[in-house]
């Protein structure tokens, strides 16, 4: 293909691109609805895929197999964290009118000039090789396609450089406010992403399905060649280290590359787009990497040892088959990949350069000499345009100097490692309040120096720009300081080695210096604005200004930097949306803040702050006060929140305590009553015993029959006393649960017969009939024999007490059921009134007609019975239909539940 034809095609492509960009900008003006959806956003993020991806990945894959992939897996992983990290950056970026990554980092560390300048310096030095990579790729492929090599001073690469510079200026440096969205540029970048993906898929499809018979055929042919088949796996364990390093490196790069920051944060129009990009962007990466390995394998198979540069396989393969159309497509794909990167990257760098290197110098001069009233906005634009040209020329120079010594990926990785130095201060600044300006400076500087020493300088040495002795023997022959094996750490590949040392130095210095250095007031304000941005209140730092300035002062100031027309429009817009202070002359803090942001878009946040401060005389001294108040406020809020929580806790605790106290005092009252009752019950028999003993003692003349009667009473009352004491102790033991329960398999029929016979005399004495209704077969149950027997005897003697002599009748029955047994004792006595049925089981609750006679007994029998039954897991109750006597019954389950046995709790009705 002729040079002229290809040049024409290329220019046409670039013009189409410009038309899209121009249209994109216009549509903002006409309908207010630009192309700015989540798809455009995701596609614009694909500016990540440059010539490196388009040509370089194939080159790397042809020698290292899948080692090209970590560069895309890292961003895929990071994309999942975008809503958290990039979402936060977007929010902050919008609030602080951030125009670049340098601006962002500088703003975080107290709007510091030095931090911004350092970031800018690192970015420029780190990115220039990356730009040169694009120039090299475009010029190499151009020459490959036209079979033309120009070795004079103005070679192909130079023309490429000039054309790209012109387009970058057209795209990105037409307006003054860098924080405004370059919607046209974003549309063009998104279009380029489509072009390069389509081109790569077309070439990949052609190579895989036309030149070969699909994936299977290609892999089978490759597998047949041992030297190619080794690409399917890793060569050694060192490869794993490299794999991990490259993954980490690309994770940091996707956040820290100035152009990625530009499209992801500065150009973002809606935070919600980030969430969709979190999977659309990885999808794009998958698609564009699908054919990398097949093309690399096809290239190895087709050009075995023919000296074809693997970085050009994408183009060389269609060319070798004389497919000019596909070769042109491949070239255009590569061109779009390169131009996209160059345009966005140089615009981003130029903004940083003008804000942090050129403007501070200029502003210092401007403030010192205060020249005429001419606007500075033209100067700002000129600086940016010159910077774009300058960076491209530097890239060109680097390409010329290093020549053919490096692969595309090698150069790209060096740039990645340079920008990765931003990651600690960037991410640390987002999530760690303690990171200070001094720490950021120390970390950045240390990381950058180690990067330069271990990666950048050796690259220059290999190209012959620097003497190569220091890379081979170490500086001054000190082998320990050899750049490729620092401190004797040999055996690592250059990039992982450099990444490790620079990160150790960077993070170490950042954290250590941050910890030992003190933050200034503005650093603390900015740190909390950044770290708390997800729950920050809008309003920025305006409340911290307590300056005095007139509106006309501020407007005049703004006019000098952004142009009179723009400034007037902005101030008019501001006064329409907000009520300006009552005194028309005096600017309120909001307006001061507004002016600062307006200027920040043009000259960066740090410079804007200095410039506005010079007019508004906002006192930073007062910031200390405000910070103290703020600190105090947040402490008070936290404290009162805690108090509120505590008082709530206290309330519930109090309620619990009150309930417990009431329960306790209830129990204590019951205990008192119990003791009083026991005392009474003990004193009564004791009284009789003492009385009769004294009577007998004092009256020896009492006749024999009376003596016998009295002694009989003494004996009976003594027995009663003994019984009472025993039962009280019994009950105490039951309630304290100190007794051991002897659970054995027992024949209840036998137990009941024994119990009946032991009370037989009682029945005979009173003339009460006792009917036993027991099963013929033994009834077995695991139970405590003695306790069971005690309950039965209690119920029987209870029943006999209430029966009339002679006519009384008591029926006892035992029912064997599936789930347990029921024993019932029925009498034909007076029965129990309804109100008493609940109470009969309570202590000393005897129900009887005391008019005639008081029932014998202690009043504890039923209480003890209930405790025993509960303890065995059963229940006891009484039924007393009017006129039919009383029926006491208890039920015991076949398997006593563990909860009721020996656990101290006594059944459900307790």
């Amino acid at each position, binding site marked *: 293909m002729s040079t002229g034809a290809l040049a024409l095609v290329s220019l046409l492509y670039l013009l189409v691109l410009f038309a899209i960009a121009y249209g994109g900008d216009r549509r903002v003006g006409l309908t207010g609805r630009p192309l700015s959806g989540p798809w455009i956003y995701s596609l614009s993020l694909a500016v990540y895929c440059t010539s490196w991806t388009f040509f370089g990945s194939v080159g790397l894959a042809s020698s290292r197999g899948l080692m090209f992939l970590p560069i895309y897996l890292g961003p895929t992983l990071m994309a999942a964290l975008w809503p958290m990290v990039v979402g936060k950056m977007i929010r902050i970026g919008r609030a602080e009118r951030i125009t670049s990554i340098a601006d962002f980092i500088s703003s975080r560390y107290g709007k510091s000039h030095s931090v911004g300048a350092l970031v800018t310096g690192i970015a420029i030095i780190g990115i220039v090789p990356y730009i040169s990579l694009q120039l090299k790729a475009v010029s190499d492929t151009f020459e490959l396609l036209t079979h033309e090599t120009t070795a004079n001073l103005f070679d192909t690469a130079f023309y490429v450089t000039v054309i790209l510079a012109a387009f970058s200026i057209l795209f990105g440096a037409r307006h003054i406010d860098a924080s405004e969205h370059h919607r046209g540029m974003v549309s063009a970048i998104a279009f380029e992403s489509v072009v390069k993906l389509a081109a790569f898929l077309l070439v990949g499809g052609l190579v895989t399905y036309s030149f070969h018979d699909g994936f299977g055929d290609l892999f089978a042919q490759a597998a047949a060649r041992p030297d190619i088949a080794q690409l399917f796996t890793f060569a050694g364990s060192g490869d794993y280290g490299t794999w991990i390093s490259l993954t980490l490196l690309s994770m940091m790069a996707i956040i820290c590359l100035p152009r990625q920051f530009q499209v992801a944060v500065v150009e973002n129009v809606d935070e919600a787009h980030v969430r969709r990009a979190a999977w659309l962007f990885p999808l794009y990466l998958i698609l564009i990497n699908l054919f990398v390995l097949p093309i690399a394998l096809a290239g190895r198979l087709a050009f075995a040892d023919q000296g074809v540069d693997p970085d050009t396989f994408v183009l060389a393969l269609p060319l070798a088959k004389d497919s000019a159309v596909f070769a042109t497509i491949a070239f255009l794909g590569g061109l779009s990949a390169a131009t996209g990167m160059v345009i966005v990257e140089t615009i981003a760098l130029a903004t940083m350069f003008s804000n942090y290197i050129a403007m501070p110098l200029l502003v210092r001069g401007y403030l010192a000499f205060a020249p005429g009233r001419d606007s500075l906005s033209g100067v700002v634009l000129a600086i940016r345009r010159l910077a774009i040209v300058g960076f491209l020329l530097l890239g060109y120079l680097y390409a010329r100097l290093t020549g053919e010594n490096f692969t595309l990926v090698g150069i790209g990785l060096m740039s990645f490692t340079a920008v990765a130095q931003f990651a600690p201060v960037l991410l640390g600044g987002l999530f760690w309040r303690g990171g200070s300006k001094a720490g950021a400076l120390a970390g950045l500087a240390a990381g950058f120096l180690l990067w330069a020493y271990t990666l950048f300088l050796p690259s220059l040495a290999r190209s012959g720009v620097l003497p190569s002795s220091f890379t081979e023997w170490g500086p001054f022959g000190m082998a320990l300081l050899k750049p490729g094996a620092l401190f004797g750490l040999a055996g690592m590949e250059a990039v992982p080695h450099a990444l490790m040392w620079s990160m150790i130095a960077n993070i170490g210095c950042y954290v250590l210096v941050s910890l030992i250095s003190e933050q200034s007031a503005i650093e603390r304000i900015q740190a909390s604005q950044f770290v708390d941005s997800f729950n920050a209140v809008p309003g920025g730092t305006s409340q911290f200004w307590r300056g005095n300035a007139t509106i006309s002062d501020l407007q005049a100031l703004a006019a000098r930097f952004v142009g009179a027309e723009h400034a007037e429009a902005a101030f008019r817009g501001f006064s329409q949306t907000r009520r300006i202070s009552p005194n028309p002359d005096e600017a309120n803090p909001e307006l001061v803040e507004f002016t600062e942001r307006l200027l920040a878009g043009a000259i960066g946040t740090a410079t804007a702050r200095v410039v506005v401060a010079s007019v508004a005389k906002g006192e930073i001294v007062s910031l200390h006060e405000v910070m103290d108040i703020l600190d105090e406020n947040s402490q008070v809020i936290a404290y009162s929140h805690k108090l509120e929580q505590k008082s709530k806790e206290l309330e519930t605790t109090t309620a619990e305590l009150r309930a417990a106290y009431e329960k306790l005092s209830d129990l204590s009252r019951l205990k008192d009553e119990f003791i009083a009752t026991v005392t009474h019950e003990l004193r009564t*028999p*004791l*009284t*009789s015993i003492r*009385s009769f003993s*004294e*009577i007998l003692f*004092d009256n020896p003349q009492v006749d024999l029959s009376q003596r016998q009667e009295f002694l009989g*009473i003494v004996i009976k009352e003594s027995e009663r006393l003994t019984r009472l004491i025993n039962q009280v102790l019994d009950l105490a033991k039951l309630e304290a649960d100190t007794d051991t329960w002897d659970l054995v398999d027992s024949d209840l029929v036998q137990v009941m017969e024994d119990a009946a016979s032991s009370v037989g005399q009682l029945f005979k004495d009173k003339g009460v009939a006792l009917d036993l209704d027991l099963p013929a077969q033994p009834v077995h149950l695991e139970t405590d024999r003695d306790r069971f027997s005690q309950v039965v005897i209690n119920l029987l003697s209870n029943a006999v007490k209430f029966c009339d002599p002679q006519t009384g009748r008591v029926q006892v029955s035992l029912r064997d059921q599936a789930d347990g047994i029921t024993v019932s004792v029925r009498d034909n006595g007076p029965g129990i009134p309804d109100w008493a049925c609940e109470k009969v089981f309570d202590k000393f609750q005897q129900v009887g007609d005391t*008019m005639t006679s008081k029932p014998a007994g202690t009043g504890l029998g039923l209480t003890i019975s209930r405790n025993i039954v509960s303890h065995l897991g059963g229940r006891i109750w009484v039924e007393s239909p009017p006129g039919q006597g009383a029926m006491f019954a208890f039920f015991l389950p076949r398997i006593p539940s563990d909860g009721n046995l020996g656990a101290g709790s006594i059944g459900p009705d307790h």
Partner: protein
Amino acid sequence: MARSVLIVDDEPNIVISLEFLVRQAGYESRIARDGDAALAAVAERLPDLILLDVMMPKRDGYDVCQTIRANPAWAGVRIIMLTARGREIDREKGFALGVDDYVTKPFSTREVVELIKHYLEPAP
């Protein structure tokens, strides 16, 4: 005519022993098993002295005492309270209601007899 003593208690054995003591001391004894019976007995014929148990079913000793003291016609009757509760507060309550004296169970028989004699035969 012999002085009469009304014994009020719901414990039969205690009643038996008190009855023996009262009779041996030479007084007439009558018996009531609870508070209502006691008031009925008083209404029937006023005794000179009442040995009154406190803890009884239906109507307790305090109640009986209060009723008796509320009736001016019964003003001359002496009341000795018998109680199994030896607490100070019970004693106070008894005196406040117009009890003449107080005996705690289990009591000494001699003390009870002396008390009865003391109230029925004032020192000449």
